[in-house]
């Protein structure tokens, strides 16, 4: 074919290194399922399998990183998968996200009994799917990854089954998510129609070599791909499912759902746009800047009026999607900022939802803000961590949140989106308002004792998993705020091709 001369080789070169992380995660998932069926072991056994699987995946990703640094990016499976630092970075983050997410949800998994193992399996599958999205250089494979991951998340959203809110969340998430997937496929189809290729290399080379007089089909395809991913990362105006899904899903697992989706989907979006459609950078950058602006404004403003912390965090995550898109408007220049942002935001959001899970109980349905009143006296650890995450998410310096925003704004400014930066920094001030409100409730107001004060006090036992998640996420958020170079250097090496 016409693109054969490019980097894509036509032979099926199988590289177990390229697909290794996904294989390991799948094996881990199968192992958990099988052992669970035949042995009915305690959760401790599962814990060991989880640790072993994630550690092995991490090691393989390390080899990928090494190979990419030494040999440069290499393609395999007929140019479907790429071993590069970009994919390996996303993989690292996803392994971390899965580990933290499982630790935060461990109490819930334990209580779910037999279905606890299913929860682990679904987390593994979701992580594998998102990794596939991040490493794949073919739109069809990106879609496959997207679907594997999305299906797992739909089920995770409703894993508690008996709660009505969770069912509603799962159904809404499923219906709108499937719709988004359909939009994504349609976009891929139009991109194929316009360029004759589903490979990002193919699209890239075709657009670089040919000036399209009527680029309509390609542009619409590109736009639909963006819309499809925008749904997954809950960027406004494609965000409507997020507050309901985050509110209804079991608290223990929401953090993972938010974090993993952002990491995988943004990685894919960056790869598709900044490499595949790099010729049309002006078009998609403008589109992304509009999406970013709408997301930031909608997310920030609607978060202000929320009375449920999960809905508030959902709207805040919409705004954060906007900030990440802000970084991405700079294309290749913004990749570092984007990768840094998704990683540190993933850590923050898992930490914040871990606190929510500890307060609401892992399967708890809703989390009204009023239940946080006077938390600092009931549990200094939970209140302190949540306050710290609020400060980090609002972008106060000496937290990773500030560095991330700073990186994103710098990238966008250098790409000429000064208006977006000014809009973003000014809207951030609105963000301070609702993030601070949580702190006000926890630290500055006395608890209203509707029930016996002793009962509220006794109810707050923090599961060991959540305790560890909080310690790690707070430490990471603080350290990366003071010494951002630790991760920035890594993110700086993780570029596309």
């Amino acid at each position, binding site marked *: 074919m016409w693109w054969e001369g490019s980097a894509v080789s036509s032979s099926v070169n199988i590289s177990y290194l390229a697909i290794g992380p996904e294989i390991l995660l799948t094996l881990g998932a199968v192992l958990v399922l099988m052992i669970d069926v035949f042995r009915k072991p305690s959760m401790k056994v599962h814990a060991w399998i989880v640790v072993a699987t994630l550690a092995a995946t991490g090691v393989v990703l390390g080899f990928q990183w090494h190979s990419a640094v030494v040999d440069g990016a290499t393609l395999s499976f007929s140019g479907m998968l790429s071993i590069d630092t970009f994919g390996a970075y996303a993989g690292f983050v996803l392994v971390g996200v899965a580990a933290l997410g499982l630790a935060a949800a461990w109490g819930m998994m334990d209580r779910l009994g037999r279905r606890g193992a299913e929860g682990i399996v679904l987390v593994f599958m979701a992580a594998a799917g998102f990794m596939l999205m991040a490493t794949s250089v073919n739109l069809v494979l990106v879609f496959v990854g997207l679907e594997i991951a999305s299906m797992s998340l739909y089920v995770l959203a409703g894993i508690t089954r008996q709660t009505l809110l969770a069912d509603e969340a799962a159904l809404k998430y499923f219906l709108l998510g499937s719709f988004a997937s359909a939009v994504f496929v349609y976009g891929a189809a139009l991109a194929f129609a316009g360029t004759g290729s589903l490979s990002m290399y193919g699209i890239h080379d075709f657009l670089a070599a040919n000036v399209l007089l009527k680029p309509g089909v390609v542009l619409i395809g590109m736009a639909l791909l963006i819309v499809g991913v925008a749904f997954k990362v809950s960027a406004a105006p494609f965000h409507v499912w997020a507050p309901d899904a985050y509110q209804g899903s079991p608290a223990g697992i929401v953090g993972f759902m938010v974090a993993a989706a952002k990491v995988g989907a943004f990685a894919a979006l960056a790869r598709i746009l900044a490499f595949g459609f790099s010729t049309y950078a002006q078009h998609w950058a403008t589109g992304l800047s509009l999406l970013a602006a709408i997301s930031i404004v909608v997310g920030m403003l609607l978060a202000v009026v929320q009375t449920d912390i999960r809905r508030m965090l959902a709207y805040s995550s919409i705004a954060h999607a906007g900030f990440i898109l802000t970084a991405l408007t700079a294309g290749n220049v913004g990749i570092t900022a984007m990768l840094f942002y998704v990683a540190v935001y993933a850590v923050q959001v898992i930490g914040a939802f871990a606190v929510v899970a500890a307060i609401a109980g892992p399967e708890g349905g809703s989390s009204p803000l009023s239940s946080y009143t006077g938390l600092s006296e009931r549990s200094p650890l939970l209140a302190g961590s949540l306050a710290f995450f609020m400060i980090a998410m609002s972008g106060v310096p000496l937290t990773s949140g500030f560095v991330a925003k700073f990186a994103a704004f710098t990238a966008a400014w250098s790409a000429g989106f000064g208006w977006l930066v000014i809009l973003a920094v000014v809207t*951030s001030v609105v963000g301070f308002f609702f993030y601070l409100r949580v702190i006000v409730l926890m630290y500055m107001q006395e608890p209203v004792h509707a029930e016996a004060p002793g009962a509220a006090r006794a109810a707050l036992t923090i599961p060991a998993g959540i305790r560890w998640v909080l310690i790690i996420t707070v430490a990471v958020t603080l350290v990366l705020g003071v010494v951002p170079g630790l991760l920035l250097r890594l993110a700086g090496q993780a570029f596309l091709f």
Partner: protein
Amino acid sequence: MDFQILTVLILIPFASAVIVALLPSRRKELFLPVGIALSMLPVVLAIYLFVVFKSGVAGFQFVEDYTWYAPWGISWHIGVDGISLLMVVLTAILVPISLAASTSISKNMKQFVVFNLLLEGGLMGVFLSLDMFMFFVFFEVILVPMYFIIGIWGSERRIYAAVKFFLFTAFGSALMLAGIISMALMYAHQNGGVPSFDYLSWLSLNMAPNTEMWLFAAFAIAFAIKVPMFPFHTWLPDAHVEAPTAGSVMLAGVLLKMGTYGLLRFNLGLFPNATLKFVPVMAVLAVIGIVYGAAVAIVQPNLKKLVAYSSVSHLGFIVLGIFALTSQGLEGGVVQMFNHGVTTGALFLLVGMIYERRHTKEISEFGGLQKVMPIFAGFFLFTAFASIGLPTLNGFVGEFLILMGSFITLKWYAIVAASGVILAAVYLLWAYERVFTGPVTKPENEKLLDLDGREKTILAVLAALMLLIGLYPKIALDKIAPSTEAVLDRVQSVTTYQVPSPGRLADVVGGIGGE
């Protein structure tokens, strides 16, 4: 240099905060003494720094420069010059004093001490940073401890005040952040691709006049909110009135100075052309602040609010002095930043002490306190005189220099501003009259205890400082003058502006503080 004194000065408060945080929660009696003891270390270092700081040198001293993250061009670049030296000393002195005045804090003493120490670390960072990224980090991070101090330990409307304080200042710094980013990228554009946040290297940037105006505005709004200048001052009375005494002391004493310091260091330093264009705007706002703040202070029924509004007036003087662009004006501005921290800090401490005894700050609740609390009345009168600007006390030195300096270039503004001195006498002496003179009208006031040893010590330290600067301003002016001259030299070298001849220091040596 082996001993990195400035880094140590920034890190000691943070380390102290960690130490206090790690004290066992059961030992409640330890938190405050340990906190005060630890905050004495920066005092010793700051005084040592003041002594070894070379007079007659314009540039930055004790400079340290380490790369923080090279690809972004950010570094841990710190140094001290005559403008920041006094601010560092002021910060160091006020922290143990405000902690020592906080024995009445009943809940969460540990957190209270920790937040105060974090605040101190942040303030040191603000005044010592020569890297704009670093500066912004500290400038912004200070909001958090102050927010908690007001919000947790304040009085009834503390939450409203804390949030308002946070949002106002955060809004200002948001715009400044955009300005900082754009300047770093401008540097990258002009110097081969690598951005830099280094203040000293930014001095060589070429800016289009329009760009410079916008950047000036972005920085000036951030600092004007912090100062606060009219019309951005509305957060201040709320924050001051609701904050606990220690919070008010630090807020008025040091936090507001971040604004004037920023205007002087960054607006004048980085945007001299735009500065010249903005002089009328800034001067008008400063004079409005002076008169308006004083006028509103007169009618306040609440003692703490009165002191708060007097700050608006006094800070107006400082801004006027800075934008007068004369040697005297700048020197007066810098020395007045220190003076205001000492006198207003003392006034807030005094208000706090009477509040602890009577649980009210309403002026009408008092009367005749002179007879019941003579020592307290003495300290109050002394501080009030310093604040009004009575010769031999520190306020006189600053305000005299400011008015003299601004009379040269901003004649009519100076004339109007001078009324602020008279109004200051009105509101402070009238307040004194109502609170302290006459018969004791309220039975509650008859049994008030006079100051105890701790309170006397705190106030005596500040009173000694007022007297020291009042009698021997040379000790401060000698260190300040070379740096403010350097600022003027820069403005003159970059623009067409010429400081009028009586506005140069050389022509008026011996005018004040000379030998």
